[in-house]
């Protein structure tokens, strides 16, 4: 009985060791191109990767979310080939990384379709999100509480929003915090009192994107520099890329890749 147990344990150890060996060898040969970062860029990068792999069967691209800053860290730690970033780089970051604008995106201010408000100014937005306006009545809506929805600390979308709208003011502590564009969408969809911000390309038909300072949030207005809440979508790299990663990058910047991005609701890189 005990002999068979000892044999069993030793054979188990051997199997585990062999598995590790096999994984280690297999992994090195065909390591996929890793693209990691912003959840705003993620769906677009996934779409690009799909199209790219459909056209080039031998290539392998893996896209993961996690957030803009997480993407930068992944690149710095060599866990990813390309980082996705949905905000401009800070000065410090610019020294370390190089960023390539792959597209530009509007920052849409979204409310529930049942909310009668269709237009806000930047000042009103700032007041709504900092908590100094507490009723929709003050901005032309129905009497009722305002529930601002924000993104978590460190999100590229949040940082762009803070930079473009809030300035020195702080987002209210009472603001609900959600960790992805999808979660913000789900919340605004169900709550008539909610107001949130998200990637223009991801708004869809279930939410209402309102005019800011009288300008409709559309791709054309972002290109024409009419709609002020716009930010770049960057691919971040450090040093030289591996050839397979470079090929994907080239594809994204090619007319074909840019067309894909445009058809998905983004604005092509100038």
């Amino acid at each position: 009985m005990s002999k068979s147990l000892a044999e069993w344990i030793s054979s188990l150890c051997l199997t585990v060791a062999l598995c590790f060996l096999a994984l280690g060898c297999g992994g090195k040969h065909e390591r996929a191109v890793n693209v990691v970062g912003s959840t705003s860029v993620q769906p677009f990068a996934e779409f690009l990767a799909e199209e790219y792999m459909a056209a080039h069967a031998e290539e392998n691209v893996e896209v993961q979310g996690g957030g803009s800053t997480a993407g930068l860290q992944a690149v710095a730690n060599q866990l990813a080939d390309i980082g996705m970033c949905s905000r401009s780089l800070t000065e410090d970051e610019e020294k370390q990384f190089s960023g390539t604008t792959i597209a530009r995106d509007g920052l849409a201010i979204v409310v529930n379709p049942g909310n009668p408000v269709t237009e806000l100014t930047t000042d009103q937005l700032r007041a709504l999100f900092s908590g100094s306006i507490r009723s929709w009545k003050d901005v032309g809506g129905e009497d009722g509480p305002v529930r601002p929805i924000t993104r978590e600390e460190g999100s590229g979308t949040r940082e762009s929003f803070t930079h473009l709208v809030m300035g020195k003011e702080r987002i209210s502590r009472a603001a609900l915090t959600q960790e992805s564009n999808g979660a913000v969408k789900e919340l605004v969809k169900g709550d008539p009192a909610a107001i949130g911000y998200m990637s223009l390309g991801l708004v869809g038909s279930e939410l209402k994107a309102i005019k800011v300072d009288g300008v409709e949030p559309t791709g054309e207005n972002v290109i024409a520099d009419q709609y002020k809440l716009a930010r770049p979508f960057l691919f971040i790299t450090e040093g030289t890329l591996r050839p397979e990663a470079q090929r994907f990058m080239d594809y994204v910047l090619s007319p074909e890749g840019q067309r894909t991005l445009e058809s998905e609701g983004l604005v092509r890189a100038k």
Partner: protein
Amino acid sequence: MRQDKLIAAALMIVAFSAVSGLALITVFIFKSGLPLIIESGARGFFLSLDWDPKNGSFGILSMIVGSLAVTAGAMIIGTVFGLGLAIVLTQFCPREIAAILKPLIELLAGIPSVVYGFIGVVTIAPLIRTHLGGPGLSVLAASIVLGVMVLPTVTSISVDAIKAVPRSYWEGSIALGATEWQSTYMVLLKAARSGIVAAIILGMGRAVGETMAVIMVAGNTLEIPHGPLDAVRTLTSNIALEMGYASGKHRDALFATAVTLFIIIMILNTAALLIAKRGVRGGGR
């Protein structure tokens, strides 16, 4: 004989590596988190409301309160339903039905927490928003979701505790003319009290540490909740929400949050051990 010793040694090594893994994690968390707590001072860290990591403010009071509020709510729901279920399963339910019900409740433990969170977001939160008001994502929503999640723990340990009470207690009580409910309430539950309290505290440990489902349904605001319909952020959510981005001081602050959580859980577990021990002594007398 030699083989026995070999296996005993191998098992010993495995056991000790598990314990030293735990020790390593503890040392790592405290090493990364404590310096920041000392630097900000206990008052600036534990008793300040101001969490603004970009500008160097790390106050986690609202999250401590949030964690405690959500846990308390979850335990009220979990205890009422879990203990109720345990009583029904052991006392008032035909054996065949109990044999089906108990494994079903234990199955609840196997559902991933994201699924609970998702159900909370798409059904419970909207129900609360439309019928009770507030943002929907709230202490109440998180308590309901967590309450269901701790049910299996509370129920199955309570069932074991009640079943461990000698049959003669029950028979004696019935013989004295007490009704079934009186015997259950006044004799069985009293005798099984320490086991039941241990069940509740173990469930509480699960509720304090749960992350994914809570992030989805608690709303994650930075304010102290004024009622069950307000949104809150818990300690675990704070770590999970921001860890992807954190670096430098911010990262240390998240480790300090983990230290706080660690201490809270240690207190709960010590309490559970003490109560369980008292139960053994009481039973032996």
